[in-house]
């Protein structure tokens, strides 16, 4: 009997095998009990990516761009991140022999800092009171000071960030729904996910709705998301591609994270809870597709709850409502 060995082919690309594991994540239908109103809610489980978050997609495409342009020749990749992009770079960089230096606020979860250490990335901790903007300023300083040592990739500005989603997330959703998707709901940090995926889907079907999910204020517990009104708006953000923005409170997102864990067996991160909360609100309000059809709402779930185990207490408090 022949023994089949299935391995990931890297011959065509010369890329490390783990780079080939990025993407092709499952689209999980949420059970009807947790879906109000008519229509379907499908959750894109991005924690299935090799480093555990959606940011592997952007990290891989940015690394490819740096290799192609020669920017990474003899230099380390440098970027600022609230954590997930940093872990993605660290894993993919390790596999390709690319040095990775990341500026991360020191209040990044211990889980993330542990992962960065495991993959051997250089971690530059920045002032937690200055948040992600402080990490960005630090990365800029390092890049200016040692241009021969670092290539500052800048995920907030790099076109490869949304392009990664245009090339992968968008087509995956289109295929998995056989073109039936009516709404795309995604939280925005750099906004690369929503912009790239939305751009692809709108090219396939112009009237698809794209919905951005943001925290309800500048002070929030939805790691990875930005309140655009009070933040530096990322250059990759393209307001023309966003049909609506929904603001979600941290408490509402926590209720949804708990519900996903307890009722669906899906333990997701806070930003997933926020996106699901926004999508549920949409369905509960009786939203229909652009042509009056039953809505098929695709929600991006950027990462899993294991990345926040140190904060599991947030799920266990008696809800105030």
């Amino acid at each position, binding site marked *: 009997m022949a023994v089949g060995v299935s391995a990931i082919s890297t011959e065509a690309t010369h890329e490390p095998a783990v780079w080939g594991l990025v993407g092709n994540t499952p689209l999980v239908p949420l059970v009807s009990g947790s879906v109000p109103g008519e229509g379907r809610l499908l959750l894109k489980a991005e924690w299935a990516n090799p480093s555990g978050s959606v940011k592997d997609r952007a990290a891989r495409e940015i690394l490819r761009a740096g290799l192609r342009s020669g920017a990474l020749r003899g230099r380390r990749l440098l970027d600022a991140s609230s954590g997930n992009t940093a872990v993605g770079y660290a894993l993919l960089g390790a596999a390709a022999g690319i040095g990775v230096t990341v500026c991360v606020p020191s209040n990044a979860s211990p889980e993330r800092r542990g992962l960065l250490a495991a993959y051997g990335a250089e971690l530059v901790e920045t002032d937690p009171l200055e*948040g992600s903007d402080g990490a960005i300023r630090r990365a800029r300083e390092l890049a200016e000071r040692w241009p021969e040592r670092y290539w500052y990739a800048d995920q907030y500005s790099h076109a490869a960030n949304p392009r990664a989603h245009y090339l992968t997330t968008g087509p995956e959703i289109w295929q998995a729904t056989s073109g039936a998707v009516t709404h795309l709901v995604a939280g925005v940090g750099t906004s690369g996910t929503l912009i790239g995926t939305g751009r692809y889907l709108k090219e396939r079907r112009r009237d698809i709705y794209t919905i951005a999910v943001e925290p309800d204020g500048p002070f929030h517990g939805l790691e990875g998301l930005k309140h655009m009104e009070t*933040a530096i708006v990322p250059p990759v953000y393209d307001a023309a591609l966003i049909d609506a923005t929904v603001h979600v409170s941290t408490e509402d997102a926590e209720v949804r994270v708990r519900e996903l864990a307890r009722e669906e067996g899906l333990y997701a991160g806070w930003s997933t809870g926020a996106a699901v909360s926004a999508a549920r609100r949409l369905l509960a309000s009786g939203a229909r597709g652009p042509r009056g059809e039953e809505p098929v709402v695709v929600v991006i779930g950027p990462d899993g709850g294991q990345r926040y185990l140190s904060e599991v207490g947030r799920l266990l408090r008696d809800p105030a409502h």
Partner: protein
Amino acid sequence: MSTSVTILIPSALRPSVAGLVEVSVEAKTVGEALGVLTSTHQRVKGHLYGEDGRLRSFVNIYLNDRDIRELEREATPLAAGDEIAIVPSMAGG
């Protein structure tokens, strides 16, 4: 006896305290210090506390770099020169 301590304000809350980076208050405990802060700068209150009057789940308060959950929470006593930091989750990408 009340003692003078400094509260470090994260960038996301500075617009609610007239742009201040730190605020000095007189208090005996961490909870009292936050109470002084929120009564002087009322817009901060809704950010820090939920409707039930408790600190919101994601709000981390550090006293000289130690999470007050590992100390005596809001009852943690203060000494002169202590620094209290309000540290939220991170925004970003």
